[in-house]
């Protein structure tokens, strides 16, 4: 099974953290629901071309946070995550994206007002 995980080469965020957050985002958005199987550590390592040690670390953190469950010999599955948690996670994911956008804007030397105007303009476009 392919997970739509895209690792960023330019981010300073450690890879295992990126994986963790993206899987959390997939769960929050409902793309992964309770009981869905996750790829094995080796398979995901091959697909993302990173070491299985990194994947194991991300999976362990997710399991510790109660997002996924591993059962011996069967594999790893999405755990039951309550609605509140999902909302928090969704907010976090959005926040993360906006933060990235802000950082890009800063690189292009946009002021706060300019950024806010840009966001408002985009929101208006969306409505139409």
């Amino acid at each position: 099974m392919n997970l739509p995980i895209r690792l960023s080469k330019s981010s300073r965020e450690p890879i295992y953290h990126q994986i963790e957050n993206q899987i959390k985002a997939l769960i929050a958005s409902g793309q992964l629901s309770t009981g869905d199987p996750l790829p094995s550590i080796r398979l995901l390592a091959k697909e993302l071309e990173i070491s299985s040690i990194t994947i194991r670390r991300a999976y362990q953190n997710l399991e510790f946070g109660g997002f996924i469950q591993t059962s011996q010999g069967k594999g790893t599955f999405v755990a039951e995550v309550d609605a509140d948690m999902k909302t928090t996670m969704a907010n976090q994911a959005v926040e993360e994206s906006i933060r990235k956008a802000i950082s890009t804007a800063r690189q292009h030397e946009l002021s706060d007002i300019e950024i806010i105007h840009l966001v408002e303009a985009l929101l208006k476009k969306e409505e139409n």
Partner: protein
Amino acid sequence: MTLPLTIRNVEKSIDDFKLKINELSFEEGTITAVIGTNGAGKSTFFKMMMNLVKQDSGDIDVFGKSVNGEDESWKQLVAYQAQTLIGCDPFTGEQLRKLMAELYPSWDEQLFRRFCEKLRIPLNKKVHKLSPGVRTKLNLALNIGKNTSLLILDEPTAAMDIPSRNDFLQFLLELMESGDKTILIASHQADDIKKLADYLVFIQNGEVTKMLEKDSLIFSYRLFWLKEEPPVSRIPGEIKRTYKKVILSNQPDKTLDYLTTHNLAIADEQIPTLEDIIHEVLMEGEMINV
């Protein structure tokens, strides 16, 4: 628990070539890629682990047993694939299968058959009638069939076509799923290393490096695209500069510190590709400090 393979203070001289390994331990369930230029000593390194080449000094233990010792039982736990399949010319694949199945208690007939079918390996033809590519495939089929705890592969994908290579990687991953297998693989294919390896070991100028965790190694390097050319010829951490404004650093934090304090704007930044890092290590003699 005994480790699949440990090496301590091994030295070997052959004519004017010298190979030195300080200390390496391989953990169960991991895949380690051994990387070096042609003639760097990868094959000699592997052959020492199989007691085919005898070290001048130091210890090599496979599952806790010295490879030079009287007790040769450790050999049943290791499948070793040399670069070329020699001495098998007059035999057919089927005859070789019979030999391996008898010698290795862990032989997995079903796995072997599946591999041969998938890669379309003819078992009734004599080995000397097979093309080099098919010979390599047969060799791989036999080594995968052995289903041993430790698998040592010396450039297994060198003569293989792309679809077969993918199938082969798939089979290796399947083997690894059980979690109790350990693989050492020498390869010149960056793709193999990216898709399989957990750890990297470099051999350079006869020295074997320690085990480097692949992702930590990659993350210890960073490429910075600057908006303007820096005023000094070498900034902290810099190991290479291209197009005057692209800095490759092996100490990203230090470089970043310098750039911020000196108000040098970063246009973009990225971790380099594995190929770039391998190039730096092997060709430029970049010292590894992870």
